[in-house]
């Protein structure tokens, strides 16, 4: 039998390179910036855009692990409640228990991580429960605990230096942007350059085949939900710092914003597809859109409608993309 030579070099396909959702996001981002600039003469300068990121980057931390969760084909809707609980526990540790602020901040991250770990364990130990149901339950529970601890009160009076987290600059660049950039690089590398990331994609595409291939599916799933909890803790730190105080109802609705950002970023809700770069672009799309409309004093209701429309588009887009992807493939096999 003749032996066939199989190529091991990737061909660069210009068409395929430009046929990516991320380019579409770049285009949308440019359009939004043009609109914003025409709405407000003060918008279009570097410092203004950079400053704008401070207003929306707090929830962006959760977008990164949420991309992993959705690539798995799961969802986590408890993240906003996790933010509230971590934030409230931190405030109470400092204000009521008299712990040093540094320790309270660590506690904040630990609480977030634990919340995520609990989600992960429940989902992997009780296979009949779907991630939606588990995180819906814990969403209510975590928020409920936050209310029990603080009883609809606000808790503030943090040390002066704590506000630096949310409002500080390093060399003219917001501290929050730098921290986000670091996390974004870490998560991007984790997803695209490591065996862990490869296994996440495998699970999202075919969890049975992954199991048969020796992928420790339960372990990976638990780690990812725990990461989502940890990053919710990070968000709690920055959000609390920005607001200067916290209440049990902080971050309400964040889970929807976060999921919208991930899905708009090209991550398919059926799992297995999407990239970190797309989700990062979509954070800026939604964030800057909101900021620009705010500049022009567009009423809040209007903002909601536009965000809602974006959500619809975000849900529709993966389907459109799949269709065109198929057409592309057909074309290729014919040629």
């Amino acid at each position: 039998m003749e032996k066939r030579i199989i190529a091991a070099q990737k061909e660069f396909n210009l068409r395929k390179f430009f046929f990516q959702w991320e380019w579409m996001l770049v285009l949308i981002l440019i359009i939004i910036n043009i609109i914003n600039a025409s709405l407000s003469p003060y918008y279009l300068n570097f410092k203004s855009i950079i400053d704008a990121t401070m207003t929306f980057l707090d929830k962006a931390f959760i977008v990164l692990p949420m991309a992993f969760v959705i690539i798995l084909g799961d969802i986590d809707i408890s993240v906003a409640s996790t933010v509230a609980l971590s934030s409230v526990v931190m405030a109470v540790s400092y204000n009521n228990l008299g712990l040093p602020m540094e320790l309270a901040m660590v506690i904040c991250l630990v609480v977030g991580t634990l919340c995520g770990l609990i989600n992960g364990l429940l989902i992997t130990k009780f296979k009949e429960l779907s991630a939606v149901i588990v995180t819906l339950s814990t969403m209510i529970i975590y928020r409920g605990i936050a209310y029990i601890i603080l009883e609809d009160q606000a808790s503030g009076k943090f040390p002066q230096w704590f506000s630096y987290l949310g409002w500080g600059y390093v060399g003219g660049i917001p501290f929050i942007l730098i921290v986000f950039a670091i996390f974004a690089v870490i998560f991007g590398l984790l997803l695209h350059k490591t065996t862990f990331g490869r296994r996440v994609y495998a699970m999202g595409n075919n969890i049975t085949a992954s199991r048969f291939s020796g992928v420790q599916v339960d372990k990976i799933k638990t780690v990812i939900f725990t990461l989502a909890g940890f990053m919710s803790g990070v968000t709690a730190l920055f959000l609390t710092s920005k607001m200067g105080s916290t209440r049990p109802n902080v971050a309400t609705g964040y889970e929807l914003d976060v999921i919208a950002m991930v899905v708009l970023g090209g991550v398919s809700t059926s799992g297995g597809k999407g990239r970190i770069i797309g989700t990062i672009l979509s954070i800026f799309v939604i964030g800057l859109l909101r900021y620009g409309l705010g500049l022009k004093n567009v009423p809040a209701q209007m903002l909601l409608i536009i965000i809602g429309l974006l959500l619809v588009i975000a849900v529709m887009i993966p389907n459109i993309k799949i269709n065109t992807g198929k057409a592309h493939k057909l074309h290729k096999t014919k040629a």
Partner: protein
Amino acid sequence: MSEYVLELKSISKSFPGVKALDNVQFNLKSGEIHALVGENGAGKSTFIKIITGVHHQDEGEIYLNGQQVEIRDPNEAQKMGIAAIYQHVTCYPDLSVTENIFMGHEKIKRFSKRILWEEMHSEAKKLLDNLGADIDPRSQMGALSVAQQQIVEIAKALSLNAKIIIMDEPTAALTKKESEELYRITEQLRDNGASIIFISHRLEDMYRLASRVSVLRDGKYIGTWNVNEISKEDLIVAMVGREITQLFPKKEAKIGEELLRIEGLGKTGFFADISFTLHKGEILGLTGLIGAGRSEVCQAIFGIMPYDKGKVYLEGKEVKINNPLDAMKLGIGYLPEDRQKQGLVLQWEISKNITLSTLDKLCNKGWLNASREAEVAKELSEKVNVKANSVFDTVSSLSGGNQQKVIVAKLLNADLKVIILDEPTKGVDVGAKSAIHEIMSDLACQGYGIIMISSEMPEVLGMSDRIIVMREGRITAVFDREDATQEAILEAAMVNRAERELAGVR
């Protein structure tokens, strides 16, 4: 009026790539129990699906009470009085027995469309009582045993006035006592004038119940006999009597020391008392009918489905395997039966599929080495001769045989000693089939121990050094290559051992 309630003449049916039925005939007398037997893949299911209107024949005619009919969909079959009862009952487990019986033909008041619950419950009770079953029609379907659910299905058929009842392996999931109960009901149905087509892998079912038996083999009609006129041996010959024409490129491999030893492996409800050994260079054929527990045994060894009894020894040392990762670390690999669901990530390219189970070899502290990955994939896919242009082709674009080769390549990259192949040539074309057989043979020569699960008799006989036959979760026979015949294997797979000894059959 015709002597037959149902008559099928020269029925043929093809699916892409296979001729499932070729010129098959069949007839059913009024008030008889007619058994339909054949090996896995003989075409019984397709045949039944044509009668029940799930599939439509390409050629041939169907006569119902002497009238030619067209059965275009299951609804029409139902209206003609044809009902089927399956091994895996298709029911609504959360609804009541009554609702299951009357699903689709509920009794309602003419104008208000109100459901007449009381009438339905009492009617259901009457049907069940007539069958001699003590089942409360208000109880939940899912709470019943499989045997009881089948009785409810029969009641449903009767509520539809079914005159022709098809039972597809109804006893497969039943205990001896439950089977007896089902026999009694079946006979009662017959005595009340229904005609029954009874499909079963258990020959004793057939001898106990049926008056006539028809045999299918490889989609062809072999013949019909009166049950008391044909012996078990002749029946088995009728079922397997094919010439083995395919060539198997089996090379003689040197059989070395013991690799794997299984002692008394068991899992409640699936298999029990499984013991065997596997040596270096040996191909061990594991055969039996579908549902005999072959895949379950191998999946237990591979750690997918934990076993609850018994021991596994690898190279003389006892090992405990909790998950597939453990198994692969120890050197046991498994090629699953359903390659599209269990074996491959279809949307992915060849290279990623090949390396998925061995990523740890291609990384440095978790960082993937992409160029090394592509090289390894290239080397392996050339070794098994995958027909592709690039290792970056997606596997969904490959043919079944080439997809299977990709999975084999994936196993080769792991440092394995034992390779379990579950139906390795199922659904692949002839060319790829012999290529896979050649690869298997080569692997055995290289000293791998291979367990091959297969339902295909020529493949089992052609490739195996030893053959283990399973029936209903137990090993019923072990043959050496020289001693194995199609007839002996099929008998071990189908006939109850106790009964075999009683009947004085070898």
